[in-house]
């Protein structure tokens, strides 16, 4: 009996457009109609490729002397012939093919997950997030207690989460063929919880350690969370689009964060620091020892040195004139 082989025509989105069973020792591929697989690609020769079994029984693809030739996956290098056991994906013209031996091993059957489990998990995350946001809002509520002020942000947050997950689901649908909405929603929920926690941790740390820079640059942590979230979304979409998309996204996020912090830095240089005690927390959260007044006022010398340096360094144009 002749062993079976399968030739798959890979679509642009990475899915299989056509799968052809070949029950012969050899298969011929090209644009002409006497081939075993006919490919409608003007860059493919009428008789382009031959797939046959080599001496050791492994499948081999061979270029039949064409103009555009035979390439490995992604068109990395042109070859005369190559063994398909190790590199099953090949390119001819603008067409990508995959050839499998009938003996190709497939992963074992995956058990069906009961749909309720994910839903319960998601609902738990959502409840945790909303509880955290509600608690945060309530602890920051200094005016009249107002149901609107407490609940409206939750509605806004829910809308943003659904919209965000929806956009990722749409992208998944386009590139992977599956929307994966529940997965994207779960990622978004987890990320939001991380953001809320980070904001709290940063505020409390800035207060407890009397660490002004922490409160000024806590936003960088939020950017990092955003970057991790986007990575997770891309990872969920599968490894195929990972490398380039990740690169582009991370570059965008780094650019965004740098721009924001450059602006902040420039504004600080221009306008200086504000007279503020920062985000205060209950005094019991203080974690650093009290400075002696003498030491505190000694440190004002460094403040004086900074403004003296600024005074000498940067007289802006027209600074010394009254007229304008």
């Amino acid at each position: 009996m002749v062993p079976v082989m399968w030739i798959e025509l890979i679509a642009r989105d990475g899915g299989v457009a056509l799968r052809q069973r070949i029950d012969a020792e050899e298969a011929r591929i090209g644009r002409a109609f006497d081939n075993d697989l006919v490919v409608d690609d003007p860059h493919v020769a009428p008789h382009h490729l031959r797939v046959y079994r080599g001496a050791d029984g492994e499948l081999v693809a061979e270029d039949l002397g064409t103009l555009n030739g035979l390439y490995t996956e992604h068109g990395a290098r042109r070859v005369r012939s190559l063994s398909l056991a190790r590199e099953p994906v090949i390119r001819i013209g603008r067409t990508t093919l995959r050839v499998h031996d009938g003996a190709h091993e497939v992963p074992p059957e995956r058990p069906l997950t009961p749909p309720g489990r994910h839903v319960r998990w998601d609902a738990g995350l959502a409840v945790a997030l909303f509880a955290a946001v509600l608690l945060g809002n309530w602890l920051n509520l200094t005016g009249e207690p107002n149901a609107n002020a407490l609940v409206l942000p939750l509605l806004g947050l829910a809308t943003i989460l659904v919209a965000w997950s929806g956009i990722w689901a749409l992208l998944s649908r386009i590139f992977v063929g599956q929307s994966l909405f529940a997965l994207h929603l779960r990622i978004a929920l987890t990320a939001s919880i991380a953001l809320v926690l980070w904001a709290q941790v940063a505020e409390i740390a800035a207060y407890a350690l009397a660490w002004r820079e922490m409160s000024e640059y806590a936003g960088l942590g939020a950017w990092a969370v955003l970057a991790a979230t986007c990575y997770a979304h891309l990872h969920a979409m599968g490894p195929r689009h990972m490398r380039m998309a990740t690169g582009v996204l991370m570059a965008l996020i780094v650019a965004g964060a740098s721009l924001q912090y450059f602006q902040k830095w420039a504004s600080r240089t221009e306008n200086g620091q504000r007279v503020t005690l920062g985000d205060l927390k209950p005094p019991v959260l203080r974690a650093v020892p009290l400075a002696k007044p003498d030491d505190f006022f000694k440190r004002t010398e460094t403040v004086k040195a900074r403004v003296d340096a600024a005074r000498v360094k940067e007289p802006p144009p027209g600074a010394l004139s009254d007229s304008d």
Partner: protein
Amino acid sequence: MSFRAAAAVPLLLAVCAVPWAQQPPPAPPAATPPETAQPLSTAAERVYDFAKPRILQVRTLLQAAGRQTTIGSGFIVGADGLAITNYHVVSQFALDPRTYRLEYLAPDGANGPLTLLAIDVANDLAVVKVEHAGLPEFEFEPRALAGRLPKGERIYAMGNPLDLGFTIVEGTYNGLVDKSYDERIHFSGAINPGMSGGPVTAADGRVVGINVAKRVGGEQVGFLVPARHAAALLERARAGPPLVVDKAREEVGRQLDAWQAAFYDALRKQDFRAAPFGPYRGLESKAPWMTCWASTNADRVPKPRTAVNMTQCSSTTGLFVSNRILTGRLDFSYAYYQAVDLNAFQFAKELSQRAPGPASDPQGGRRLTAQECHDDFVGAGEGHPPLRATWCMRAYRDFEGIYDATLLVLTQDRGREALLAQLTMQGVSQANAVATGQRFLEAIEWSR
């Protein structure tokens, strides 16, 4: 509170800002004073007749355009052509002699250049010289120099208000202003922008004071610099070397430094007393020129969730250095906060929203450097609550060693009540700022 906001403003007249259409109504006929048999209008006529060849309009002109940018008044005090005016009338020229020049205009239409000989920033005075020998002069009133002028005496302010022409205004001498660090005569009469630096004389035409400021929001509340400061500056101008105009900026810096040294010295000499704020104690200056005002939110509707009792004290000093620099103020405030139904987190949030002090103003941004701060938790030891303190400073670009400094202090011993104290010092040296700040911070203690 509204009274505090009504600050005294120097009477500098920026020409572009004058409402030309508004002509001041003629003064109503005044009552006859007991000591003279003649009606008052006749006295004013005599005073003006006497003063006319002796008063000047002092104009600051833009070199490039040759046109006036600001105007004030002045008066001749010596046959050698020396004249007195306000520092704020000539400040643009003093700080930037390459952009501006000074010129005088006499009531008879004569005009010519003015030379700046001496300045006194603290008393807002300047001595200028008219290149015109043999002019008649004013004398200073000896009773005014000795401080023996009776309250209620009729005095006459002269100058060129709003560039409308030389004018004489009758008013009343009301003694020195109470609760003022700078010596100023309270003049009850209308003085207006453009009259700055003009003389105020008694009925015999002798100078009692110099027009300097009025209170916006008051009616006919004017301020004069006592004549003795002008006499002293005149003596200094005659005795000492004349001011080198290119070095005037350094002279202003020296005077600012001397002023703040004397002011903080006086503050220390006047001493402080403890003032209770809830369970805490703070500091209160015994100086009569520190005026304090209290406020509360207890009567707010709906009932506030944080009760606030605030005391704000201000030195009511103000030093005009230039159009952009008004300095020399000392403010301190205590606000005692008590949570009504807020928890500790909410109360801390409420305090964070209240605590921000003055943002650095973009106007001053050119004249002052950007602000730099340092903050920490501070403890002054036994009897003192733990504190959260922020110290911020800006330097004056034009004057070395002069700063604006702010100290913000919050007590950190209880979750639901706190004392927020703020100290703001303008135009102060580092040493005085730190000494005052440390005194202020260490005075915060538990009263029970």
